[in-house]
Every structure is written in C-alpha cells, then in structure tokens.
C-alpha cells in the first residue's frame, strides 16, 4: 500500500505484469474512489464552464462527457478533468485526487452569479472497469448493453456510469455513493474483473501516452506543449489562459511532450531520469516505466521543439549510464487489429 494524495492505495494485488495483461486481454477493475467529484448547475453554468475550461462545453450534448483542462492565466495546466453533461445546465466534473482542494478553490475564486457549485468528493466512490471484456461486466451489472460509443453517460439515480477510461481499452468508469462502493467492487469481481492497482494503472496509461497531472502536466507547461491541443478550443470567445496559448501558438511552441522508447537493453526507465541529445543533457523524463506490452522501457519527456519529431535519437541516463532511446509517435502501444 502507498499513500496517494492522502489515500492509502494498493500498488498491486497479484502483480503489475499480470494485472496489466488482464486489462489488455480480458478485464480488470480499479478502485478510483480517490478521484474528486464536483457538481455544477444553475443558469449560466455552460458559459461559466466555457470561460474556465479549454474544451467546448456548449458543444457537449446531454448524456455525454469530454476531456478538458483547467488553466492558469499563463496557460499552464492546473488540472485535467472529465466534464459530464447531465442536463442542459447540470454538470459533473471528475478531477484528480491531488487537486481537489486547489481546483475547488480556483473555481470558487472565479464564481459567477447563479452558479451552484458542490464539491461532493467525499460522498462518492468510483471504480474503473477496463478491458476487451468490459462490456460483459457492464451487462451483468446494469442489465443492458454497454454503449459502443466512448464518453456516453448512463445515470441511475446517484450512479453515473460513463464509457471512459485511462487504459486505452474499452470499458467504463462508475461513480456511486461512497456507501455502495464496497458492494460494487465485490460485484465487479464476481462478474469476472481482476483487481488492479495503481502500478498497472500507470503502465497502461503510459503505453497510451495519457498524461498524468503532477508528472507530465504542470502549471509551467501549456496543453499545446503537452500535445493536448485537440482538447483546446481556441475558437471560443475567451477562457482563462487563452491569450497565453494564442501568443505561444503564434511564437511557436518551445517544447513538446514526446513519447520515448528505449532501443537497447536497459534498466526500466523511471521519472526524473536525465535525457541527453548530442552529448548534452537537455531535459528529464516526466514519467517512465517498463512497458509490459512492449517489453521495453518507455517514457514521456518535454523535448525542445527541434528535437521533438518521431525518429529523433536520444539517450536516457540511468544511474550514471546512458542508454539509447528514440522519439516515437503516440501512442506507444497500439492494439493489433
């Protein structure tokens, strides 16, 4: 067990490799009760969220969810989150555990008239069921077919089930009242999902190059640098951080979050390992792991723009020795079809 944003959480149950494999090949369940839940409602909540988040909230249809970012005035990332549209002016925001207090304070400091805001993080538990067999678990649990489309919300009272995830596999995330979480976990296991911990959650998301806030995202890096431009709508009238992003786009993005794969036998790559190019240390890894699916070390690192193209050769330093690696196209792992 490890401490994660004040939560005592298991790194692994049976072992990271076995858990990773079960999510890639069958189905696993993660306890993600540490994630934060905010409710936003009231007249004007669409415009209010659109002024604080990068993605286009107005374009989101009822019953759908979208990935978005909350930025500071400099365009740096405060947090990344999922916005659920529950109704015309009714939203659920799912935020990172470590950022619950800061996000809530930021939103409250930008409060507008008519907006109802509730930090409901303490009232809810959450599970993520992920893997090619997740649809079977969904059917057993909810007695209906899992939507094929991503980002679809099924609301059953205070249960919110949405076809999202952090693994690159099919599946869903299920938010339920905290008192129901233990029973929900048991039902997932009974239905055939394998218990998975934080370790596999990290290797799975890193193979997909999904960023982790606090590691790969930071208040000093913009979403354009992080390669998340797809989730930023610069066509919106305004949002916090927009002018900084527009200026950065015009001047040229100075660095990009690149996917690296080791190309020789090397120890596993970890966060904060120095990255060298042409005999000079230029940056460090923000995330790193041994990829269970690929069998090689993989990492993310912000490289200066001129070195950020796939094919760029780099070296990653591990305990004073340098090992060859290469910038690769994201995602690092792709399912064979």
């Amino acid at each position, binding site marked *: 067990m490890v401490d994660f944003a004040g939560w005592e959480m298991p790194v692994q149950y049976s072992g*990271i490799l076995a858990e990773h494999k079960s999510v890639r090949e069958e189905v696993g369940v993660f306890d993600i009760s540490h994630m934060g839940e905010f409710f936003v409602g009231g007249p004007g909540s669409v415009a209010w969220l659109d002024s604080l988040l990068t993605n286009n909230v107005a374009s989101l249809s009822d019953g759908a969810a979208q990935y978005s970012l909350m930025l500071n005035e400099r365009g740096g990332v405060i947090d990344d989150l999922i916005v659920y549209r529950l109704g015309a002016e009714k939203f659920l925001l799912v935020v990172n555990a470590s950022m619950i207090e800061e996000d809530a304070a930021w939103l409250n400091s930008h409060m507008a008239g008519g907006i109802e805001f509730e930090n409901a993080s303490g009232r809810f538990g959450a599970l993520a069921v992920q893997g090619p067999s997740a649809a079977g678990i969904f059917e057993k649990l909810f007695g209906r077919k899992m939507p094929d489309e991503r980002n679809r919300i099924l609301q059953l009272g205070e249960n919110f089930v949405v076809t999202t995830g952090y693994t690159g596999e099919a599946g869903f995330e299920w938010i339920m009242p905290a008192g129901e979480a233990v029973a929900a976990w048991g039902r997932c296991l009974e239905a055939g999902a394998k218990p998975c911990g934080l370790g596999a959650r990290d290797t799975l998301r890193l193979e997909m190059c999904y960023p982790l806030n606090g590691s790969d995202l930071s208040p000093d890096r913009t979403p354009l640098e992080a390669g998340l431009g797809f989730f930023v709508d610069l066509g919106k009238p305004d949002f916090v951080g927009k002018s900084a992003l527009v200026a950065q786009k015009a001047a040229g993005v100075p660095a990009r979050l690149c996917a690296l794969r080791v190309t020789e036998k090397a120890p596993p790559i970890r966060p904060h390992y120095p990255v060298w190019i042409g005999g000079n240390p230029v940056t460090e890894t923000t995330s790193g792991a041994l990829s269970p699916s690929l069998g090689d070390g993989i990492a993310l690192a912000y490289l200066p723009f001129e070195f950020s193209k796939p094919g760029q050769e780099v070296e990653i330093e591990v305990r004073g020795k340098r090992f060859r690696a290469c910038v690769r196209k994201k995602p690092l792992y792709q399912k064979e079809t």
Partner: protein
Amino acid sequence: MNVPENLRYAESHEWILVEGDTGTVGITDHAQAELTDIVFAEPPPVGKKLSAGEVAAVVESVKAASDIYSPVSGEVTGRNEAVEANPALLNTDPFGAGWIYKIRISNPAEVEALKDPAAYRAQIGA
C-alpha cells in the same frame, strides 16, 4: 516463506552461503515476493571491492528499483550472468539459480554478526 537453514541473513533481506572463504550472495524469498516481477538485475563486476553494507547490485521490479547491499566485506570473485539475462530467476529460484554474486570474505567476523535463520524468520514474521 522459505528460509533455508544453511544460510545467514542481513536485515536488508540478502542471504549469504559461506563455503570456506567464499560467500555466495542473493536476495531472500521474502524480498523477491515483496518486489514481485523482477525485470532487471545488475550484479557487481568481478574484482570490485565491497564493504559490508555497501550497495553491491541493483535489482528492479516493474514498480521500483532496489539496492542490494553486500552483507560482508571482500572482493567480488564471480557474478551471475544468468540473472542479468533472465532477471525472473530472482523470483523463481531466489536461493538457487537466482544467486547474484560471489565474494571472497575479508572479515569472517562479519558473517557471525549476520542473522541466523531463526532471527531472520522472526524479523519477517514467518
């Protein structure tokens, strides 16, 4: 948890098999179970002089890197290249094929200061 009778143990979960003035060093069954999924091992080079308690090798599981401390002082006389090629041996056979290095023991009194199997069993609650 397996704790063989013929070995001595360091508090940091290394074992040593003493034969004459040579010791063979590895990590315990308890240590490999805690680490799980060992994917990298780097035994020390032959000829390296180690002091008791000094970092002798590194093993890494998927989740973390761990230093392996030499239970005794001396000079490295052999390294197990098999665990370098196949680190999973540390999981599957920690007291056998998963040995890490051999050392010429320079101070036999250090062996006496290590834990006997009963004391190590008590430490890990086995």
